[in-house]
């Protein structure tokens, strides 16, 4: 187990470096000048040139290495070792300036939202995304597992057919349709909840339900298939022959094995739910991270694009690792 964790953690920087290189290459190729406002008056070309230099946007190589150095903490480390950070602090104090804000992993400034750094944006939006994703996965697990069990107990029955149809709808209907309908029914018609508010998990219930439906549908299918297989096994038959109650057979014996495919799906599903909720975030006005990638690309905000991608990539690797560890813990035969 320890070997697995170490191996994955060693792989992590390599994976992230490849993703960083690919993302930056693609983002760099997007046409348009990231330093210009799409609307309104424009700074003089000389000013734009100086700003490019200031942000190392004057060449791909400069940007690649400077960003890599800041985002990996290498720059912080070398500045700390050379005493530059201390010197900066002393100089600022002597000149009556605010102490410079330094991050170990510095993702740089946002070019679009001038008053914010990418670190601040991630700090504010990542917890929101994690909460939304967590609630969505909880709902998906609850709904999906129950629907899967119900379908598996009486396969090809009307109940099974019903759960399959609902699962199909869950996968097929776009989030913005489901989201808008939920908004209309609950806050607007029934007066339950608020539109545009995201002050806690309760406000996240409707967006989480919207986000959870495709995951619930997939979990239902996985559980159903796993349960059908498990219920046909010898040990289940033996348990029934010994007079074990049907509830215990289903939950304790069959589900334990049927749940393993669901468990392995949970890693990528959780990462996706926590990062890929752009449409749900927009419809329900949830200030999560999903929207930043899309907005970043639209505005060619290189710092934001790469910052968000690096966080997403790291989350994906870590979640997969967590699931693998959990998998081996639940079923030691795998190890």
């Amino acid at each position, binding site marked *: 187990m320890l070997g697995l964790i170490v191996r994955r953690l060693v792989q992590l920087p390599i994976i992230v470096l490849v993703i960083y290189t690919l993302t930056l290459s693609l983002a760099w190729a997007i*046409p*348009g*000048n990231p330093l210009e*406002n*799409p*609307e309104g*008056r*424009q*700074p*003089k070309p*000389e*000013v*734009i040139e*100086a700003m490019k*230099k*200031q942000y190392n946007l004057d060449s791909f190589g400069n940007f690649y290495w400077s960003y890599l150095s800041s985002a990996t903490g290498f720059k912080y480390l070398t500045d700390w070792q050379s005493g530059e950070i201390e010197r900066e602090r002393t100089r600022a104090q002597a000149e*009556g*300036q*605010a102490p*410079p*804000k330094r991050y170990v992993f510095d993702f740089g*400034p946002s070019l*679009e*939202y*001038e*008053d914010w750094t990418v670190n601040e*944006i991630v700090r*504010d939006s990542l*917890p929101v995304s*994690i*909460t939304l994703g*967590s*609630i969505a*996965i*909880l709902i998906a697990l609850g709904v999906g597992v129950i629907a899967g069990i119900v379908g598996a107990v009486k396969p090809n029955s009307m109940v099974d057919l019903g759960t399959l149809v609902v699962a199909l709808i869950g996968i097929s209907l776009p989030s913005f349709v489901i989201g808008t309908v939920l*908004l209309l029914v609950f*806050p*607007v018609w029934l007066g339950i909840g*608020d*539109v*545009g*508010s*995201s*002050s*806690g*998990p309760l*406000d996240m219930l409707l967006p989480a339900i919207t986000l959870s439906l495709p995951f619930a549908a997939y979990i239902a299918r996985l559980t159903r298939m796993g349960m059908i297989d498990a219920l046909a096994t010898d040990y289940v038959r033996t348990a029934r022959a010994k007079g074990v109650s049907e509830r215990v057979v289903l939950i304790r014996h069959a*589900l334990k094995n049927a*749940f393993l495919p669901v468990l392995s799906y949970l890693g990528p599903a*959780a990462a996706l739910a926590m990062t890929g909720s752009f449409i749900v975030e927009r*419809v*329900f*006005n949830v*200030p999560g991270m999903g929207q930043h990638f899309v907005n970043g690309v*639209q*505005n*060619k905000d290189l710092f934001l694009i790469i910052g968000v991608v690096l966080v997403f990539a790291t989350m994906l690797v870590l979640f997969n690792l967590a699931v693998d560890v*959990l998998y081996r*813990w*639940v079923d030691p035969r795998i190890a």
Partner: protein
Amino acid sequence: MLKILAPVILLVLVVAATLVTDRPMPRADFAFVNRGDVNTLDLQKMSWMQDLRVARILFQGLVANDVFTHDYAIIPAAAERWEVSDDGLEYTFHIREDAKWSNGEPVIASDFVYSWRRALLPDTAADYTKLFQLIQGASAYADWRQAQLDEFAESELRGEDRRLAAEALWEEALVKFDEMVSVRAIDDRTLWVKLELPTPYFLDLLAFAVFYPVYPPLVRQYESVDTETGFIQAKTGWTKPPELVSNGPYMLTSWRFKRDMRFEQNPHYWDLDSLNLDTISTPSINDPNAAVLAYSSGVVDWVSDVTPAYRADMLADKMLFYEENRAEYDALRAQGLDVFEIDRQLPDDPRKDIHAVTAFGTYWYNFNCLPTLPGGQPNPFADARVRRAFAMTVDKQSLVEDVQRLGNPVARTIIPKGSIGGYTSPGGLRCVSDATSEAEKQEIIAEARQLLVDAGYATPADVPTIEILFNKDGGHDLIAQVVQKNWQEYLGVSVRLAQKEIKVFRDDLKKQRYMVSRAGWYGDYGDPTTFLDINRIDDGNNDRKYHNPRYEELLDKAAVELDSEKRMAMLSEAERITMDEDLPMVPLFHYMNVYLFDPDTLSGLNSHPRTEQNVYLFDILGDGKGTDRVLTMPPLPPSSVGAGIDPRGIETAILDRDELFALRTRPAEAQPAKEKGK
């Protein structure tokens, strides 16, 4: 079993942690949806409408516009009075003694000098630097600083030497500013400024948020010299609470990224008694539909920019409501009442909560005026006759009625008619939708075709395929399709559409990689030059690369003309040249601002075409806070109100707004805006 439940327990713990740490705030007295997320609260770097709106909540300039007068009269703000020299060049402002920053420190004259210097420095990359170059010596100073920075960039110095040199450079720039630029803090309460040329709209400019002051002791803390470029750069952080210090009616107590902003009364504001709201909040709602639903469910009291496609249907419903109350509506309108006041006096009905008012902005199509296109081929639009032909064959009425459906006024000029006091708009070039009969329409089309023949295109097939460039979203595609159809049908030319992402679109526009493109502009201040300057050859927003020495000569002459009437006549002639003869752009329609608010409960919005809404004047009627008195525009003289108008926008009801400006209906003291403040 516990093992299976482990991931569930983990997820529950995450949610519980959020529950504990994220406590919701109570609803503010007034909540509104701003046009978009605030980009920056650095006053000198602002240019977006939503940023400027928040700036007016937090900060205050020397003067302000009285937005409840028809000419947007200038009234005292941080300055209690001022004197202007006879030649119109020198202004002396006296800052009121009780003008304070939110930390209790007095607002002093040097705060303005510091802030205006920031705006002038190329280092700040301020969008509105050019406005500050009206000050004597400012333009020369900006050029000097740029040359200084360019020279430094070439320098071979490295390490500590470079840092010291950059700091010395900045010290020199500070000294030079005092030597070159004619703006001085005579003492703490007296600010003196001298302009290059008499500028009749200078006071109006000072009411614009980029001229407001920032708090120097705070901003200085975040400034540092970039050793590589020599630039002074301001680090982020000072614009957010609790750091931000402001001098306006409210202070910023919370700013959660993409979530909300919250404002509370500034206890040191000099006119605290005039405020009607204790707290204001602006949740960040970017989805157009969610914004409407937020209003419907009572989360917000005002949506400042209603953009879903169905807003036209909402306005149509309002028209039905007017029809149902026709007699009462006509009677109120005959009294010359403001459009919001009319709504207020009509029976309560949710249909009347939507409001469309004409804005100080115009939507148009650019023609690239360069002789050749980027590929090297000849550009047909380099010839004014071709531009005129294409401009004449756009059915603007159809755009307004079938695409926009908001009651937008059709535009024949770039400056919205009647939006600037004392200015007479030229007639503008006639187009197919001006025709009153089919025969007249055919006559216009024939004239346009003849213009093409005169320009050397014997048949429509000789005209190269025309490409219309526009950006995605915002309904630009529908407009382009109509224009494409018009040109194909009336001129017989081939037209193709090029839709691009906003940044790519903008880049193409800046580099003149287009033939025809969509464009638009909102005026910044109450003078025709806010629109006309963008057609000067050296203006950064002249994306058309239009150049006419006669046009610029008129603008130059107007810039030194002291007689207001003559000056306006020169500017009107300049606009006539572009709108009747040269057509570097074809104006299509004037923008509408669409609001959602309940006129029975919310007061403080004005329906003036400049649509500068000052949230600090708003009042929730009947909430027991503030004066609870209705604040409204003064009535129009009955003679200026026409019959049979589209009730969606009161501006279309005004037959001749110039007449209105001449009348100046009521003295300022008698207006409700003033009564309220007392």
